[in-house]
């Protein structure tokens, strides 16, 4: 198996200034595989690709090609070629010379010496490459006279003509319209089969990733979330992020109530995953795994409140109590009518809850008895650090035994519940402001992740709708911040 691996990334990290673009990335790719890096913009997928191409050097870690370390090798010495997002064709050269560019620079061994390719050899290869991309008659055309799709094909021809060991594709279909994108997807898949080259593909389009790849690597914030086949990723998402990012899904907070039993949306369902009893979990249900039945039948019931015709099926939204359930069904059902529904046990996917509260390990108390999180000072109940204490008139904590404590600069762990953070539309109004970086809908509420300028994340639950990239303010009531002192209180006692 080891000799089957063409490229391996070991503990690769890349930081720009203080932020991690890629964080401890480990991956191996088998020869001839079609692998896709999938994630939202800014997740580090392109940076990873650029490190494989040699345009960026990893801050830490190693990249091995056929077992050899190529971490520091410049791009022009690597047997990989790239298809760029905006094609990056050379406008001053015609189609033929664009494709021939790499071949003219190539040296091939002949006996003990290296020689250039002859004009004839180049000609044959260029013609062959143009044939593969179906643009044989375009040799003398100027790049600017080609359509976007044609330029894309030339960019692919220019890369594959060099017979690279790995072809890197950086969102190559991003600039094409939908119809052309679908056609090119099929052609790329065909090309991959024919050429037998390893393809590493970067995209933010989950459908593209599922259609094309043998293996999908889902990334978020520079970290791998899940590696697997398209089926694995879709059917067995590892966490709520993957489930939400790949395809439509219903995500709910649930509790395990017994052996293979889980309770969510106020009903208990059978499931196949085993979790300890009373564990808080995230539950994922794909819209196609819900089967609508007649009223009165089925495991539970709800009222259909919305119906959208999608061509092959209808998309319904059913209110089950306070929760929304998205369902797809080919039948034409009535809106505002109550139906029952069933969910097969293997249609209920249960994941460990990633986050039950916001925990800040590097918070500290400032001299005004406030807790500083992400460089912002929050009012808090500092007397909670010493049981039974009160605050004296000088602002010191007075213990029940009469000892006075000065907690200025004390390191604490601050814990804030997901439902305790108040979100404010006026981003200046809160104690801290930030940008919404992720939204996950959980049936009756949204789970938002808000990132501050200091790169600290606040996760909160809200019923209101926001958009990604919205700037919002956040505030927390003093009694809702739980403080835990690092070290003993004695250290802060005043003599």
């Amino acid at each position: 198996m080891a000799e089957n691996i063409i490229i391996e990334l070991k503990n690769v990290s890349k930081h720009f200034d203080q932020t991690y673009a890629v964080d401890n990335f480990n991956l191996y790719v088998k020869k001839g595989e079609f692998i896709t890096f999938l994630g939202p913009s800014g997740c580090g997928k392109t940076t990873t690709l650029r490190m494989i191409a040699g345009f960026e050097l990893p801050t830490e870690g190693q990249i091995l090609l056929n077992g050899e370390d190529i971490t520091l090798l410049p791009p022009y010495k690597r047997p990989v070629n790239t298809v760029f997002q905006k094609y990056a064709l050379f406008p001053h050269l015609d189609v033929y010379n664009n494709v021939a560019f790499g071949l003219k620079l190539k040296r091939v061994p002949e006996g003990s010496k290296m020689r250039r390719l002859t004009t004839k050899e180049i000609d044959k290869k260029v013609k062959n490459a143009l044939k593969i991309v179906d643009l044989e008659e375009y040799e003398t055309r100027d790049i600017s006279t080609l359509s976007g799709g044609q330029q894309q094909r030339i960019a692919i021809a220019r890369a594959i003509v060099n017979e690279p060991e790995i072809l890197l594709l950086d969102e190559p279909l991003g600039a094409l319209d939908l119809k052309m994108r679908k056609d090119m997807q099929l052609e790329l898949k065909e090309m991959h089969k024919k050429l037998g080259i390893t393809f590493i593909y970067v995209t933010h389009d989950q459908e593209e990733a599922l259609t094309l790849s043998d293996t999908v690597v889902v990334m978020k914030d520079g970290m791998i979330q899940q590696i697997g086949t398209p089926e694995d990723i879709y059917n067995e998402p590892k966490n709520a992020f993957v489930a939400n990012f790949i395809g439509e899904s219903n995500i709910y907070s649930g509790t395990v109530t017994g052996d293979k039993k889980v309770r969510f949306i106020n009903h208990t369902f059978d499931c196949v995953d085993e979790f300890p009893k009373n564990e808080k979990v995230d539950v994922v249900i794909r819209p196609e795994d819900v089967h609508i039945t007649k009223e009165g039948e089925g495991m539970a019931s709800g009222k259909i409140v919305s119906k959208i015709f999608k061509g092959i099926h209808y998309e319904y939204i059913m209110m089950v109590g306070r929760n929304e359930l998205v369902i797809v069904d080919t039948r034409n059902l009535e809106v505002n009518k109550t139906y029952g529904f069933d969910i097969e046990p293997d249609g209920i996917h249960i994941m460990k809850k990633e986050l039950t509260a916001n925990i800040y390990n590097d918070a500290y108390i400032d001299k005004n008895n406030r807790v500083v999180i992400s460089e912002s000072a929050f009012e808090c109940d500092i007397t909670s650090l010493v049981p039974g204490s009160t605050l004296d008139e000088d602002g010191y904590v007075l213990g029940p035994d009469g000892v006075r404590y000065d907690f200025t600069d004390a390191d604490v762990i601050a814990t804030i519940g997901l439902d305790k953070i108040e979100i404010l539309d006026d981003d200046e109004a809160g104690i801290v402001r930030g940008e919404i970086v992720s939204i996950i809908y959980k049936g009756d509420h949204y789970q938002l992740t808000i990132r501050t300028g200091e790169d600290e994340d606040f996760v909160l639950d809200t019923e209101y709708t926001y958009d990604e990239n919205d700037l919002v303010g956040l505030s927390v009531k003093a009694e809702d911040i739980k403080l835990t002192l690092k070290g003993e209180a004695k250290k802060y006692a005043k003599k």
Partner: protein
Amino acid sequence: MSKNKFSLSDFLCKFYVYILLFVMYAPILLLIVYSFTDTKIIGKWGGFSLHLYKALFRDKEIMQAFANTFLVAVSSAVVSTILGTLGAIGIFYSGKRSKAFLEGLSNIPVMNAEIVTALSLTILFVFCGITFNFTTLLIGHVVLTIPFVVLSVRPKLMQMDPNIYEAALDLGATPSKALREVIVPEILPGVFSGFILSITLSLDDYIITAFTRDTAFQTLSTYVYGVTSKKGTLPPSLRALTTVITLIALVILIIVNIKSSKEKEK
């Protein structure tokens, strides 16, 4: 009613433009017209004659200054075009923060008073114990023109797809080869206009030339300044000289325009 008002303001607009153009070009036209007559002062027409041109081309001092001016202009333009182009590419591909800093830094000489540049160069040369010669003059002109090369190359770089450099590396080109075969052909029009701009700036420069030249070395600007300050009046042959220089400038302008309109067609 309103129609009438419109045409009046229209007329005023046009009138204003023509007045402006007239004020701009009248002195030059006057000089050109009076370069074809052999009178001491402008205003008296002494009949058509090419005498001033004959005298101009026979005047060894003027011809020497003429040759010197072009020598300085062309050589300084070559040097600053090469250095300025490389500099602009370097700035373009440097990191975000240093890019903004370097761009600002390269703009300062454009805004700065020329006299300051000239004085500081003089002080630098004296400080280093360098006697003024052709090289110091050349350095002076390169310093004067380099920011303008950077300024005219930059927009071409910004129009260019920044990924083509990486694409060339990806296809096996070494960095220097990628620069020569991919970047330079893309920005060539900007390089060319930077070169022309350098020549024209250098041609009519007086301040830096006066400060950094060897005193025996005369360019047209120092020569003209020399004779007018000595004699107090403009020698008639300079009228012919002005006409010749205007003609050269016109030719350059036409070449540049033809070239840029051809590019647009492309």
